[in-house]
């Protein structure tokens, strides 16, 4: 099977976001594989191990994303491709990324493409479905289980807390939801082997794309942090007094009733 995984480098979940001059400060921050993409990598490796074939991880980003790709290789992926847009694109969006990925995947005869359900930074959840659309293949999002049998695929997906079982056929794109698996961490032999695995670096030119072709469709107007959480209030007194006060506060202060 020819399996591809779409992978994004994101902030470590433990990082505190600091905004300076209207943009997020990246200096000194730790970066990781987007956790949902990590599920995708793990699932891809498991499917390859049972079905045979090859797993290629692809990332659109800067030079630094090489570290996350190396980690995926150390987990067990076979090949990695970095589409380096550092020098070409200043402000991309989901359209930019999906257009580039689709262009790359065109003609690669992917049987299965796995991506994360969302990236924990942008959080749009668009890239996977957009890529599938551009490639004109079906997609299923937020999957929590997948079984491949020949070219038919059985999938359980999370639907707002309920489960839905779907049957589909390859080629297919799926996006991973939490619960799909428990991603392994790279073993030391895996880390040492990853050093020797191929990591190809491409630029827009190599995909016959111009900057105009992938120009963002959206514009970021402002970036701001959520308001600071105020301290809670403990009501005191007789129960009925408390209830009355609560109702009045919900009405006047929280303005929810």
């Amino acid at each position, binding site marked *: 099977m020819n399996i591809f995984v779409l992978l994004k480098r994101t902030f470590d979940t433990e990082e505190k976001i600091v905004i300076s001059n209207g943009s997020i400060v990246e200096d000194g921050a730790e970066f990781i594989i987007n956790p949902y993409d990590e599920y995708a990598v793990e699932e891809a490796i498991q499917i390859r191990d049972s079905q045979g074939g090859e797993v290629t991880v692809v990332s659109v980003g800067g030079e630094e994303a090489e570290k996350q790709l*190396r980690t995926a290789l150390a987990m067990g992926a076979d090949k990695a491709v970095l589409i380096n847009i550092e020098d070409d694109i200043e402000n991309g969006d989901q359209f930019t990324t999906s257009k580039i990925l689709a262009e790359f995947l065109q003609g690669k005869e992917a049987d299965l493409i796995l991506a994360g359900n969302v990236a924990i930074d942008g959080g749009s959840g668009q890239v996977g479905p957009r890529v599938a659309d551009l490639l004109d293949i079906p997609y299923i999002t937020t999957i929590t289980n997948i079984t491949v049998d020949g070219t038919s695929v059985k999938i359980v997906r999370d639907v707002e807390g309920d489960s839905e079982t779907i049957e589909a056929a390859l080629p297919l794109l799926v996006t991973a939801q939490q619960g799909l698996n428990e991603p392994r*961490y*790279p*073993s*030391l*032999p895996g*880390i*040492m082997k990853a*050093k020797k695995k191929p990591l190809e670096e491409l630029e827009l030119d190599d995909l016959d794309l111009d900057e105009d072709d992938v120009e963002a469709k959206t514009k970021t107007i402002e970036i701001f942090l959520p308001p600071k959480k105020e301290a809670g209030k403990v009501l005191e007194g007789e129960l009925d007094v408390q209830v009355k006060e609560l109702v009045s506060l919900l009405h006047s202060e929280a303005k929810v009733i």
Partner: protein
Amino acid sequence: MEKTNTRTRGASFLFSKVEPDHVFTPEDFTDEHRMIGTTAKQFVEKEVTPHQGQIEKQDFKLIVTLMQKAGDLGLLAHSIPEQYGGLGLDKISKGIVGEMVGQSGGYGVAHSNHTCIATLPITYFGTEEQKAKYLPKLASGEYIGAYCLTEPNAGSDALSAQTTARLNETGTHYVLNGTKLYITNAFFSDTFIVYAKVDGTKFTAFIVEKDFPGLSLGPEEEKMGIKGSSTRSVILEDCQVPAENLLGEVGKGHVIALNVLNLGRFNLGSACMGASKYSLSKALQFTQERKQFGRAISDFPATKQKVVKMAGRIYATESLQYRTASLLEEALGGLYESSDWKEIGKQMSEFATECAICKVYGSETLDFTADETLQLHGGAGFIKDYGVEQIYRDSRINRIFEGTNEINRLLIPTHLFRKAMKGEVDLLSKVQQAIAELQESVKLDNEPLAEERNAVDTIRNLFLLCAGLAFEAHGEGLVHEQETLMGLADLAITLYTAESSVIRTLRSVKRYGEEKSALKINLARVVLEDSLWDAERLSRTLTMALTDGEKQKQLTGLIFRECSQLRSVSLSVDKKRELADLLFKENKFIC
């Protein structure tokens, strides 16, 4: 100027400046090093820490399972050559894994004991057959190992062992008799490296399997800490060890026993560093949650002062551990496949001084950090649920095993004097040069950290001055003057910590600029401030003891003046508070 060889010699930091480019720092880690660190950390946090309660209750089955899981991840295989099922990684990787498992108390001790002193004797001194038979299993965790040196009457004086080995009449087996004491991992070990005297005189190493007839274990010792690592006596009663399980050569057991301990001491330093970082992060978190007098106790300058001191010591430990890791790699990197035991022994002991410092400084940093963390927790520190009393209990053994800190201190100057006696180092001219430099006024260069580097040079000169005085006063009898040796050892430790911190910072400044290295500069200054006070106190005390009359007056005056001139490298109170605030923001040691 001293011409620097491309290859650093052991203990050379005591008498010559180091070339900054020859000092390895954590900033030089490769991507692989970082990934290995992440994997080891995740393993500890996900697999070990959640079971801390069971581990404390001495669930040894669990320890074995965890070791096997570690084996699956390759965490037991770093120091075993590839051809024997290992990974043959460098000593930096070994240090990284050691650091990461260090925070896990009893499990960490079991893990490190296995990968280090229980496995390395076979890695470096085993025959091909022995390596092929044991190493793959030790790498995977199928076998767990123990190292049996201590006896009821042979602790620090290890070579006075009374365990005997006698070749049987048919020449097929050695028959071992004796008792080994306080053996780590005893209960679940499959292989025991046992030292015994062939014919009652020739100190020799053997690989003994748990099922060899005549081997039995004493009851589990009730220990103060590191409860997850089993500790028992190993009793040998006419224990039948096949002749091919003799390790190394008859009468050459000391080459294995003592040299492997050098690596053990380095590794212990790594583990203590990891545990110190863990301890500090607990202190940082707790003091921000605990409120008294209407504010978090982290707001009080007295808390900040403690935090800064801990961070300074951790910075120094980290700097000297990885510097030493790289030195050990230089010495041993090419010897995985060697069978030249003499050369291996020589290379393993080349950096004995540095390894002893790793052990002493690392274990005392952890003791200091654990104690202050407990103090900052107040009453909660004394209560089991908060997990701090365990850090405190687990810490204490580190100053004792792998050679007590006292034995290690004695080793530090003794190595240098031996080299001087053998004519390998012209100590006398170094001493004279040092005294001359102390009397001259120094012209600082224009390179970064000129004052800091000058301070390090002064500490070196003070060490050399005192070493010269000690030699002058006692000559060859110096080995018996333990008070003097202890003082010289502390000066040497002070020098290595100060130099490792400053050179690491210098390399960072050169690579990333001053602004991005600001935190490192501040931490190095915290280290230096203490180093200078220590150096002044130590060298004045030694001078008082070793000289008298006019000379004494002159020299103590000289030391006082020299050290007083260097105070400008200290960090202001305000800057120290800022440094503490930064650590509080991160909730962990950063630099």
